[in-house]
């Protein structure tokens, strides 16, 4: 079945308030989701480090898990600590 959308009315919109447009790890827009996810939003949230850099949670977790010794922010290489 093929559906043609003739018009649509939005009732709400949202966007992340991040200090950048794209995730520095996967390079996808923050308003989209990481390459493993389908739906942006709560399924693919953003997280912030104490250094103020921000990533998709899935991306930063993969990065931290790939680091054997120190867990550093991929942007500024300060020790990565999640912002409360």
């Amino acid at each position, binding site marked *: 079945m093929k559906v043609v959308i003739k018009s649509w009315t939005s009732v709400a919109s949202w966007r992340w308030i991040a200090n950048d447009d794209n995730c520095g790890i996967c390079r996808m827009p923050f308003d989209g989701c990481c390459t493993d996810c389908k739906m942006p939003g709560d399924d693919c949230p953003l997280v912030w480090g104490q250094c103020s850099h921000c990533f998709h949670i899935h991306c930063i977790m993969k990065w931290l898990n*790939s680091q054997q010794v120190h867990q550093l922010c991929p942007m500024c290489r300060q020790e990565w600590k999640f912002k409360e």
Partner: protein
Amino acid sequence: MANIAVQRIKREFKEVVRSEEVAKCAIKVELVNDNYTELKGEISGPPDTPYEGGNFVLEIKVPETYPFNPPKVKFMTKIWHPNISSVTGAICLDILKDQWAAAMTLRTVLLSLQALLSAAEPDDPQDAVVARQFKENPDIFWLTAKHWSHAYAGAPKSYPEFDAKIKRLVDIGVDEHRARVALSSYNWDLEKATESIFS
């Protein structure tokens, strides 16, 4: 290859193509195969270095685990530099090893390599022969690096005396590259170079 690696390389590829460095002809990337696992990079030799005027080709292999691990990069163009093997083109640069970070990109890697050409680290060498010359005979190092840039990277011609010495060895049947390596390694001492080839 993992989705994230392909997606990212595709985006980065566009990013490099659009970058101002490409407009200035300082860096370049090309695809080698269709699945984005192998690329060909190119950097121009920075001004005020013995590499000025040369174009240096790089082999870039993107691992399955990119960007969580660095791309594997080596020089395909032969080069005389303390941190690059004159034999294999292997590069000693921290960001391509343990100092890699996922936020780095093809563009930043190429620019870092260009910076490495401007600022060698002889105390952390990849090629010990070159590094020793760099420290002990900086003038000869400069001329030798310039000579290699002309011979392999298309930089302007420099020091005819070196060409004459290479020709002496070629005339007695030595392969040109082998002659160049021997002479470069022995600070262009024809006698010592000849001895090293025939010993």
